[in-house]
């Protein structure tokens, strides 16, 4: 059996860098049981299969408010790791040690890692490591994770601290001290019998956590005594119980820091950050600069670097597909198996896989922005605008990613601290026109609006954003009437991202994407191929207009008459578009039996008028996202029903907006 070691610390303290340095390439990403908080585990170098490191979420405190905090507490209490490695940002000791004071209550052996010591030292500040060890009764290891300095020391310290008993340290001060000890006597026995750390139970009681009262089965009589003790404490402290407790912890920290942390000035990085922010969060320039940065990233991702790579990937997949098909032909494999593999699986999975380069490049830039500290500034700059529609600045980033691909965008909502914000963002993000829809725009524009390409593109994107805003306002005033969420966010110092972190993050996302391509997309491709290739008597049809899919398409197509396109090929394309948006193009190509672009243009002119083509575009932007995004939605909402309601809402909005545009267009054009 391997021993479990928990790595925990605030956000922005370099936890991921340390985790990567300690575990190297042995990482495994999963979820904490029952929730969608990501759990990364890995074996510590040189201790494979012996010492397993668990990366707990980056949190500021153990209060049970966000799912990240709840997961962390539950993990520490239930799994009882052999050791806690608490990593703190040495340039910001006071606030980082707050979590430490809470961890100390859990009776688990612990060691402290001071990261970013290089920044402390080069700025002329210093920390008395030995003094800190004495005050906190634990091992303290100074490191600079981004420079790979001190990692060996951490591994040695882990070996030394593994089987040590947990440290007993009393951080009590003044009046709270008395209350803690009085309450300890009352609940000591029941805490012991439940195997819960006593000190943790007592502070939960002081924080009026109802769960702990029930867990410890505290009876009415004891409740009264406890209430009396706390009222007396509040009276003496001159403040309420919650503030008194936080204050006690901070007084202890201030005491320790006063004797061990010597700050002459802000660190160089902090001074540099303030200078950078004079520009990046400038009153007038802040927003234009942000838009420029995003435009640049999108230009690089979707045209300059991404497009050629995507073409390359496309032709690579094409060559491999051809080889497989030729191989099958040469070996006399039956026609329908060849069709299943060629037209179904290879075409479906291949068209999605060709988006891999774009995903990789996009996540490369986004990780750079995230790790540099700029994302927090984006939230700072954009918060007011998003608050108007009932969200916070933090929702901006997922929505932005949505322009690339809804799947990672929906996945990235995990970083949002409020459930309400998370759900709203998941519902709204697919309205941001994703890059997979670009081929559809290209197809329609080439056939109908060749001279007005830019105008059509811009209006399509704007309609998406506009509908997202309207939807947000609707949701905010109906389903998601709720309290505004606290927006109390650290703005970390700007730091140069380490390539290793960015690389590992990109690798993670790429793996996730490939995994989806070979599971959900694979299945969906087979289903669509089946519907497209067979009729109701399960005979193979060579003309897809005779297929099951075509008859479903003909059946639903009258629904789209008010939108201007009552054509079975259009409605069938919209259905196949659910597997992957690019399929809209391939389906229309197949169903119109067009072998060239020119032929496709001609065929499209037969199906649509310019107005109904535009209405078709609007519907494509807004209606339910592809199965991969649907799968992500279901996973993040943790509910099939909510996920289905979400796509029904999206499709409903698409219908209404396309309807209005087509009908108004008919009146005025």
């Amino acid at each position, binding site marked *: 059996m391997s021993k479990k070691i928990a790595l925990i610390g605030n956000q922005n303290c370099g936890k991921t860098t340390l985790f990567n340095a300690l575990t190297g390439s042995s990482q495994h990403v999963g979820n904490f049981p029952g929730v969608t908080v990501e759990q990364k585990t890995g074996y510590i170098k040189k201790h494979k299969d012996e010492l397993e490191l668990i990366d707990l979420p980056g949190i500021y405190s153990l209060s049970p408010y966000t799912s990240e905090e709840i997961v962390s507490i539950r993990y520490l209490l239930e799994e009882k790791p052999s050791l806690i490695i608490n990593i703190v940002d040495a340039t910001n000791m006071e606030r980082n040690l707050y979590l430490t004071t809470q961890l100390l209550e859990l009776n688990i052996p612990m060691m402290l890692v001071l990261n970013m010591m290089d920044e402390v030292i080069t700025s002329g500040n210093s920390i008395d490591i030995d003094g800190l060890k004495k005050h906190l009764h634990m091992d303290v290891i100074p490191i600079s994770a981004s420079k790979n300095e001190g990692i060996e020391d951490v591994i040695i310290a882990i070996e030394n601290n593994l089987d040590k008993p947990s440290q007993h340290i009393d951080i009590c001060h003044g009046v709270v001290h008395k209350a803690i000890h009085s309450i300890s006597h009352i609940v000591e026995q029941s805490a012991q019998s439940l195997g819960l750390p006593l000190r943790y139970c007592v502070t939960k009681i002081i924080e009026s956590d109802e769960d702990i009262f029930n867990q410890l089965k505290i009876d009415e009589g004891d409740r009264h005594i406890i209430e009396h003790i706390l009222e007396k404490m509040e009276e003496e402290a001159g403040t309420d119980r*919650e*503030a008194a407790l936080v204050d006690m912890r901070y007084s202890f920290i201030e005491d320790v820091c006063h004797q061990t942390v010597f700050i002459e000035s*802000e660190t160089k990085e*902090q001074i540099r950050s303030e200078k950078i922010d004079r520009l990046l969060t400038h009153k*007038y320039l*802040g927003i234009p600069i942000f838009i420029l940065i995003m435009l640049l990233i999108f230009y690089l991702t979707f045209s300059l670097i991404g497009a050629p790579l995507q073409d390359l990937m496309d032709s690579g997949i094409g060559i491999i597909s051809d080889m497989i098909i030729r191989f099958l032909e040469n070996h006399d494999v039956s026609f329908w198996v060849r069709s299943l593999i060629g037209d179904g699986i290879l075409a479906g999975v291949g068209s999605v896989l060709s988006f891999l380069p774009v995903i990789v490049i996009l996540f490369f830039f986004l990780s750079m922005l995230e790790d540099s500290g700029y994302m927090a500034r984006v939230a700072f700059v954009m*918060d007011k605008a998003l608050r108007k529609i009932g969200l916070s600045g933090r929702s901006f980033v997922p929505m932005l990613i949505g322009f690339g691909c809804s799947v990672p965008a929906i996945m990235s909502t995990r970083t949002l601290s409020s459930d309400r914000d998370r759900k709203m963002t998941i519902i709204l993000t697919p309205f941001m026109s994703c890059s997979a829809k670009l081929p559809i725009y290209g197809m329609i524009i080439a056939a109908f609006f060749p001279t007005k390409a830019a105008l059509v593109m811009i209006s399509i994107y704007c309609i998406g954003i506009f509908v997202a805003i309207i939807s947000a306002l609707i949701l905010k005033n109906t389903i998601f009437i709720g309290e505004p969420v*606290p927006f109390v*966010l650290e703005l970390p110092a700007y730091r140069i991202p380490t390539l290793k972190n960015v690389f590992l993050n990109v690798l993670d996302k790429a793996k996730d994407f490939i995994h989806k391509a070979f599971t959900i997309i694979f299945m969906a491709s087979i289903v669509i191929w089946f519907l497209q290739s067979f009729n109701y008597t399960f005979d193979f049809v060579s003309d897809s207009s005779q297929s099951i899919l075509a008859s479903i398409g003909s059946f639903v197509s009258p629904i789209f008459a008010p939108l201007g396109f009552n054509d079975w090929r259009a409605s069938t394309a919209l259905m196949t578009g659910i597997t992957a948006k690019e399929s809209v193009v391939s389906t229309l190509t197949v169903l119109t039996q067009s072998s060239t672009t020119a032929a496709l243009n001609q065929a499209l002119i037969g199906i649509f008028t310019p107005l109904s083509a535009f209405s078709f575009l609007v519907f494509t932007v807004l209606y339910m996202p592809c199965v991969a995004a649907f799968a992500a939605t279901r996973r993040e909402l943790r509910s099939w029903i909510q996920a289905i309601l979400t796509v029904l809402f999206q499709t409903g909005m698409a219908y209404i907006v396309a309807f209005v545009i087509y009908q108004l267009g008919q009146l005025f054009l």
Partner: protein
Amino acid sequence: MTLDQMSPQTLVRIVAVNGKGLLRRRLLEMGLTPHTLVKIRKVAPMGDPIEVYLRSYVLTLRKEDASLIEVEVVSDE
């Protein structure tokens, strides 16, 4: 006086933190406790939220939430 009314570059000391529940706990836990020195650094381009410096780090919070924090002015440069 409350924190949201302060103009940039003012150094203040926290007198009390009002409000309740999650929000108040967050404010306290992020180190906005009574007696803490806080420097107001900046207001976001759209006029909200604000950026402050305390306990050697930079924090941003909304004016609405900052109005829960009672302060006294220590100095304004």
